[in-house]
Protein backbone atom coordinates (compact mmCIF):
# COMPACT_ATOMS: atom_id res chain seq x y z
CA UNK A 1 0.00 0.00 0.00
CA UNK A 2 1.28 3.41 -0.92
CA UNK A 3 -0.41 6.46 0.41
CA UNK A 4 0.75 10.02 0.54
CA UNK A 5 -1.62 11.25 3.23
CA UNK A 6 -1.49 10.61 6.94
CA UNK A 7 -4.87 9.72 8.42
CA UNK A 8 -5.62 11.77 11.52
CA UNK A 9 -8.30 12.15 14.19
CA UNK A 10 -11.69 12.93 12.64
CA UNK A 11 -10.90 11.03 9.45
CA UNK A 12 -12.04 7.58 8.46
CA UNK A 13 -9.55 4.79 9.04
CA UNK A 14 -8.71 3.40 5.59
CA UNK A 15 -9.62 -0.21 5.01
CA UNK A 16 -6.72 -2.53 5.70
CA UNK A 17 -6.28 -6.26 5.62
CA UNK A 18 -3.50 -7.67 7.80
CA UNK A 19 -2.52 -11.24 8.70
CA UNK A 20 -3.72 -12.49 12.07
CA UNK A 21 -1.21 -14.05 14.41
CA UNK A 22 -3.50 -17.05 14.89
CA UNK A 23 -3.96 -17.56 11.15
CA UNK A 24 -6.18 -16.03 8.51
CA UNK A 25 -6.63 -12.33 7.94
CA UNK A 26 -8.37 -9.43 9.63
CA UNK A 27 -10.15 -6.94 7.41
CA UNK A 28 -10.79 -3.67 9.19
CA UNK A 29 -13.94 -2.95 7.18
CA UNK A 30 -15.47 -6.09 8.73
CA UNK A 31 -15.22 -4.41 12.14
CA UNK A 32 -17.58 -1.54 11.24
CA UNK A 33 -20.40 -1.19 13.74
CA UNK A 34 -18.11 -1.84 16.68
CA UNK A 35 -15.98 0.52 18.73
CA UNK A 36 -12.31 -0.33 18.34
CA UNK A 37 -9.20 0.19 20.38
CA UNK A 38 -6.18 -0.33 18.12
CA UNK A 39 -3.13 -1.02 20.23
CA UNK A 40 0.17 -0.89 18.35
CA UNK A 41 3.26 -2.39 19.88
CA UNK A 42 6.53 -4.06 19.05
CA UNK A 43 8.28 -7.03 20.60
CA UNK A 44 11.42 -4.93 20.97
Amino acid sequence: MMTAMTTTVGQTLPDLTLPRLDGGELRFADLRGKKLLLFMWGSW
Partner: protein
Amino acid sequence: MEHTGGDAARPFVEQAGATFPTVVDEHGVTSTLLGFKAVPNGVLVDEDGVIRWAKYGGFSIDKPADVEVVERFLRGEAPGPSPVRDAPYTLGPVERELVETKLRLGRLLDSLNRRDEAVTEWRAALQLDPENLVIRKQIWVARYPERFHPTIDWDWQREQLTREREDEVAAGICGPDGCPVPWA
Protein backbone atom coordinates in the same frame (compact mmCIF):
# COMPACT_ATOMS: atom_id res chain seq x y z
CA MET B 1 -1.02 -4.81 15.98
CA GLU B 2 2.55 -5.95 16.06
CA HIS B 3 5.40 -4.49 14.07
CA THR B 4 8.18 -7.04 13.88
CA GLY B 5 6.78 -10.34 12.71
CA GLY B 6 4.66 -13.19 13.98
CA ASP B 7 7.37 -15.34 15.53
CA ALA B 8 8.70 -12.54 17.71
CA ALA B 9 5.21 -11.48 18.82
CA ARG B 10 3.71 -14.83 19.73
CA PRO B 11 5.27 -15.30 23.21
CA PHE B 12 4.13 -11.83 24.28
CA VAL B 13 0.56 -12.42 23.15
CA GLU B 14 0.45 -15.81 24.86
CA GLN B 15 1.88 -14.44 28.07
CA ALA B 16 -0.67 -11.62 28.12
CA GLY B 17 -3.52 -14.08 27.53
CA ALA B 18 -4.89 -11.73 24.88
CA THR B 19 -8.48 -12.52 23.89
CA PHE B 20 -8.62 -9.89 21.14
CA PRO B 21 -7.29 -10.45 17.62
CA THR B 22 -3.63 -9.64 17.07
CA VAL B 23 -2.46 -8.78 13.57
CA VAL B 24 1.08 -8.50 12.28
CA ASP B 25 2.23 -5.45 10.34
CA GLU B 26 5.74 -6.37 9.32
CA HIS B 27 5.77 -3.97 6.37
CA GLY B 28 4.94 -0.95 8.48
CA VAL B 29 1.73 -0.18 6.60
CA THR B 30 0.01 1.32 9.65
CA SER B 31 3.06 3.38 10.53
CA THR B 32 2.93 5.09 7.16
CA LEU B 33 -0.84 5.37 7.11
CA LEU B 34 -1.19 6.89 10.57
CA GLY B 35 2.15 8.67 10.54
CA PHE B 36 3.76 7.37 13.71
CA LYS B 37 7.41 6.73 14.40
CA ALA B 38 7.31 4.87 17.66
CA VAL B 39 5.13 2.50 19.63
CA PRO B 40 3.19 1.77 21.88
CA ASN B 41 0.18 3.63 20.49
CA GLY B 42 -3.55 3.59 21.20
CA VAL B 43 -6.15 4.63 18.61
CA LEU B 44 -9.91 4.75 19.21
CA VAL B 45 -12.19 4.20 16.22
CA ASP B 46 -15.97 4.61 16.34
CA GLU B 47 -18.70 2.42 14.83
CA ASP B 48 -18.49 4.30 11.54
CA GLY B 49 -14.76 3.73 11.21
CA VAL B 50 -13.83 7.30 12.15
CA ILE B 51 -10.74 7.86 14.31
CA ARG B 52 -11.89 9.66 17.47
CA TRP B 53 -8.73 9.74 19.56
CA ALA B 54 -5.08 8.75 19.15
CA LYS B 55 -2.05 8.67 21.39
CA TYR B 56 1.24 8.05 19.60
CA GLY B 57 3.99 6.92 21.93
CA GLY B 58 3.60 5.92 25.54
CA PHE B 59 0.06 4.51 25.40
CA SER B 60 -0.45 1.83 28.04
CA ILE B 61 -3.34 0.05 29.70
CA ASP B 62 -1.24 0.34 32.86
CA LYS B 63 -1.74 4.12 32.80
CA PRO B 64 -4.98 5.17 34.56
CA ALA B 65 -5.32 8.28 32.36
CA ASP B 66 -5.21 6.17 29.19
CA VAL B 67 -7.69 3.65 30.59
CA GLU B 68 -10.04 6.48 31.54
CA VAL B 69 -10.13 7.75 27.96
CA VAL B 70 -10.97 4.28 26.66
CA GLU B 71 -13.72 3.81 29.26
CA ARG B 72 -15.22 7.20 28.45
CA PHE B 73 -15.29 6.27 24.78
CA LEU B 74 -16.96 2.92 25.54
CA ARG B 75 -19.64 4.68 27.61
CA GLY B 76 -20.53 6.74 24.57
CA GLU B 77 -18.90 9.96 25.79
CA ALA B 78 -16.40 12.03 23.84
CA PRO B 79 -12.89 10.72 24.51
CA GLY B 80 -11.52 14.27 24.72
CA PRO B 81 -8.60 15.88 22.93
CA SER B 82 -5.80 13.67 21.64
CA PRO B 83 -2.31 14.23 23.04
CA VAL B 84 -0.17 16.43 20.83
CA ARG B 85 2.44 14.42 19.00
CA ASP B 86 5.98 14.98 20.15
CA ALA B 87 7.31 14.64 16.64
CA PRO B 88 4.68 14.84 13.92
CA TYR B 89 5.42 13.12 10.68
CA THR B 90 7.05 15.75 8.53
CA LEU B 91 8.25 13.78 5.53
CA GLY B 92 6.87 14.70 2.15
CA PRO B 93 4.97 12.10 0.12
CA VAL B 94 7.93 11.21 -2.10
CA GLU B 95 10.29 10.72 0.85
CA ARG B 96 7.69 8.70 2.68
CA GLU B 97 7.26 6.32 -0.26
CA LEU B 98 11.02 6.04 -0.55
CA VAL B 99 11.32 5.14 3.14
CA GLU B 100 8.57 2.56 2.85
CA THR B 101 10.12 1.04 -0.28
CA LYS B 102 13.54 0.76 1.37
CA LEU B 103 11.99 -0.81 4.46
CA ARG B 104 10.20 -3.35 2.32
CA LEU B 105 13.31 -4.11 0.25
CA GLY B 106 15.33 -4.52 3.46
CA ARG B 107 12.83 -7.00 4.87
CA LEU B 108 12.88 -8.98 1.61
CA LEU B 109 16.69 -9.10 1.64
CA ASP B 110 16.66 -10.09 5.31
CA SER B 111 14.26 -12.93 4.59
CA LEU B 112 16.77 -14.18 1.97
CA ASN B 113 19.55 -14.11 4.61
CA ARG B 114 21.19 -11.14 2.86
CA ARG B 115 21.40 -9.27 6.13
CA ASP B 116 24.19 -6.82 5.27
CA GLU B 117 22.31 -5.61 2.22
CA ALA B 118 19.13 -5.41 4.30
CA VAL B 119 20.81 -3.22 6.90
CA THR B 120 22.17 -0.97 4.13
CA GLU B 121 18.60 -0.36 2.91
CA TRP B 122 17.32 0.27 6.44
CA ARG B 123 20.14 2.69 7.15
CA ALA B 124 19.25 4.60 4.00
CA ALA B 125 15.64 4.71 5.19
CA LEU B 126 16.72 5.93 8.63
CA GLN B 127 18.84 8.64 7.09
CA LEU B 128 15.73 9.93 5.31
CA ASP B 129 13.67 9.63 8.48
CA PRO B 130 16.09 9.81 11.43
CA GLU B 131 13.31 10.25 13.99
CA ASN B 132 11.80 6.90 13.11
CA LEU B 133 12.36 4.59 16.03
CA VAL B 134 10.67 1.68 14.28
CA ILE B 135 13.39 1.67 11.60
CA ARG B 136 16.14 2.18 14.14
CA LYS B 137 15.02 -0.79 16.19
CA GLN B 138 14.79 -2.93 13.07
CA ILE B 139 18.50 -2.27 12.45
CA TRP B 140 19.35 -2.98 16.08
CA VAL B 141 17.55 -6.32 16.02
CA ALA B 142 19.55 -7.32 12.91
CA ARG B 143 22.90 -6.03 14.17
CA TYR B 144 22.69 -6.79 17.88
CA PRO B 145 20.37 -9.82 18.24
CA GLU B 146 21.96 -10.68 21.58
CA ARG B 147 20.42 -7.49 23.00
CA PHE B 148 16.93 -8.74 22.15
CA HIS B 149 17.02 -12.48 22.79
CA PRO B 150 16.36 -14.11 25.16
CA THR B 151 15.58 -10.85 26.97
CA ILE B 152 15.34 -7.25 25.82
CA ASP B 153 18.09 -5.02 27.18
CA TRP B 154 16.31 -1.68 27.66
CA ASP B 155 19.31 0.03 29.26
CA TRP B 156 21.41 -0.86 26.22
CA GLN B 157 18.75 0.59 23.91
CA ARG B 158 18.78 3.94 25.71
CA GLU B 159 22.58 4.05 25.65
CA GLN B 160 22.70 3.02 22.00
CA LEU B 161 20.16 5.68 21.09
CA THR B 162 22.26 8.33 22.84
CA ARG B 163 25.41 7.13 21.04
CA GLU B 164 23.76 7.10 17.64
CA ARG B 165 22.24 10.53 18.12
CA GLU B 166 25.63 11.93 19.06
CA ASP B 167 27.13 10.37 15.93
CA GLU B 168 24.31 11.76 13.80
CA VAL B 169 24.71 15.24 15.17
CA ALA B 170 28.46 15.01 14.49
CA ALA B 171 27.68 13.91 10.94
CA GLY B 172 25.24 16.78 10.54
CA ILE B 173 22.26 14.53 9.86
CA CYS B 174 19.87 16.05 12.37
CA GLY B 175 21.15 19.52 13.03
CA PRO B 176 22.81 20.96 16.13
CA ASP B 177 20.02 19.90 18.49
CA GLY B 178 19.99 16.29 17.34
CA CYS B 179 16.99 14.37 16.10
CA PRO B 180 13.83 14.64 18.18
CA VAL B 181 13.48 10.89 18.73
CA PRO B 182 10.29 9.99 20.56
CA TRP B 183 10.99 7.53 23.33
CA ALA B 184 7.95 5.71 24.63
